[in-house]
């Protein structure tokens, strides 16, 4: 099968072609790049929805409930479920899928697990490319579930059109919700496991955060959900659709598309240049010498980094 046939099969909705192309893209092969460039002009239709929040907050279970609701609405839904790679072995347990496995056979659903590999900020470096592939393949909704995020893993906001922050009751006090980072990037806040005590307080903190924000064009929506019992999910998907129509009808969609394009290209440049730099630095004899000097206290880390950067530029 040549690459233009392969690309055409993806656009025609062939699952096997799509799945194999994702592997090519993940492995950063020339074939993957060519496929992506062939199909890119067919992107731009899908809703790109990000789900983020700490580990164990219920992201995968919530995504499952959202897929079910999308199925009821006859929306073809793709999921990119990202889990962390081991910094030691590079291995990974891709455990998000197990929460959604009962939806595997549904004709409208395609779930793909990804290890974060060298990716930073809660995503894998090829997430954005895989997202474009799903978009071109004709999915109405592409859901990206990040790695369990800390306070500043906010890269999802650069590639998703609508970002949902998943929170839990008893996750902290008012100060936590005032902090910068994760709490600033959401268009929708979902307090999951809201049958547990503390959900009203959690919602009140989030609402206070929203009401005090002065620099927002879109006023974030906050709601309570119980993903495991599929409660509040219709309201959540309605909120997503509301934000999507706001983006597409009330703002200048072209300006928004350009902003997203800028973010995508930037994030690719960031990971390309970081990986290239690492390659150069690790094969550089000056690096070892300077690092030895830092270890023995002769040179400070800032000076050392400047010496190495100066050496390679």
């Amino acid at each position: 099968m040549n690459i233009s046939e392969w690309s055409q099969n993806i656009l025609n909705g062939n699952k096997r072609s799509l799945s194999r192309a994702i592997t090519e893209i993940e492995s950063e092969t020339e074939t993957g790049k060519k496929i992506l460039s062939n199909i890119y002009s067919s992107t731009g239709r899908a809703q790109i929805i990000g789900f983020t929040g700490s580990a164990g907050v219920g992201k995968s279970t919530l995504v499952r409930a959202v897929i079910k609701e999308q199925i009821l609405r006859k929306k073809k839904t793709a999921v990119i479920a990202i889990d962390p790679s081991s910094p030691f072995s590079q291995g990974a347990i891709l455990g998000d899928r197990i929460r959604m496995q009962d939806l595997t056979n549904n004709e409208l659903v395609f779930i793909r697990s990804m290890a974060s590999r060298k990716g930073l900020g809660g995503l894998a470096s090829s997430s954005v490319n895989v997202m474009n592939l799903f978009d071109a393949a004709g999915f109405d909704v592409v859901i990206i579930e990040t790695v369990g995020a800390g306070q500043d893993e906010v890269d999802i906001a650069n590639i998703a059109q609508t970002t949902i922050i998943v929170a839990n009751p008893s996750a902290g006090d008012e100060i936590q919700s005032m902090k910068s980072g994760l709490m600033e990037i959401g268009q929708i806040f979902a307090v999951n496991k809201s049958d547990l005590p503390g959900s009203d307080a959690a919602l009140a903190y989030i609402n206070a955060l929203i009401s005090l924000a002065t620099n927002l064009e879109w006023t974030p929506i906050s709601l309570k959900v119980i993903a495991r019992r599929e409660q509040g999910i219709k309201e959540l998907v309605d909120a997503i659709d509301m934000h999507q129509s706001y983006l597409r009808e009330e703002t200048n969609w072209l300006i928004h598309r350009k902003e997203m394009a800028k973010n995508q290209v930037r994030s690719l440049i960031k990971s390309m240049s970081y990986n290239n730099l690492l390659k150069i630095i690790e094969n550089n004899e000056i690096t070892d010498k300077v690092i030895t000097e830092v270890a023995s206290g002769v040179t400070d880390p800032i000076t050392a980094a400047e010496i190495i950067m100066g050496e390679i530029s």
Partner: protein
Amino acid sequence: MKLNQAVKVLIAKPGLDGHDRGAKVVARSLRDAGMEVIYTGIRQTPKMIAETALQEDVNVVGLSILSGAHLEIFPKIIKEMEDRDININEVLLFCGGIIPDEDVERVKKMGFHGVFGPGSDTRDIIKFINDFFS
């Protein structure tokens, strides 16, 4: 067969038995050997396993079964995979759980290159997979 990427493994529990300690131990040790591992959870139908292998484009499928239904259910899984245009000569198949000695040859003939029963050393499973891809 050579791979220029991380080895992606599907560990699946077909049929109705719910004993998945073995499957989880294998999943964990393959992770520590640098592989990317997806575990389906228990009570999977042949269709679910084949569809997952399709969507995830895995290089390896490991089936764990303790119910005794392997001679019934394994051919169905292979058929479902082939129906989805997965070439089972390109995917490494292995299995574990309770496979009686007299069934091992039949299971191997179906296309399962490795059979790892109780007491298997996870290092042997890792070596078995790595040898296939080197």
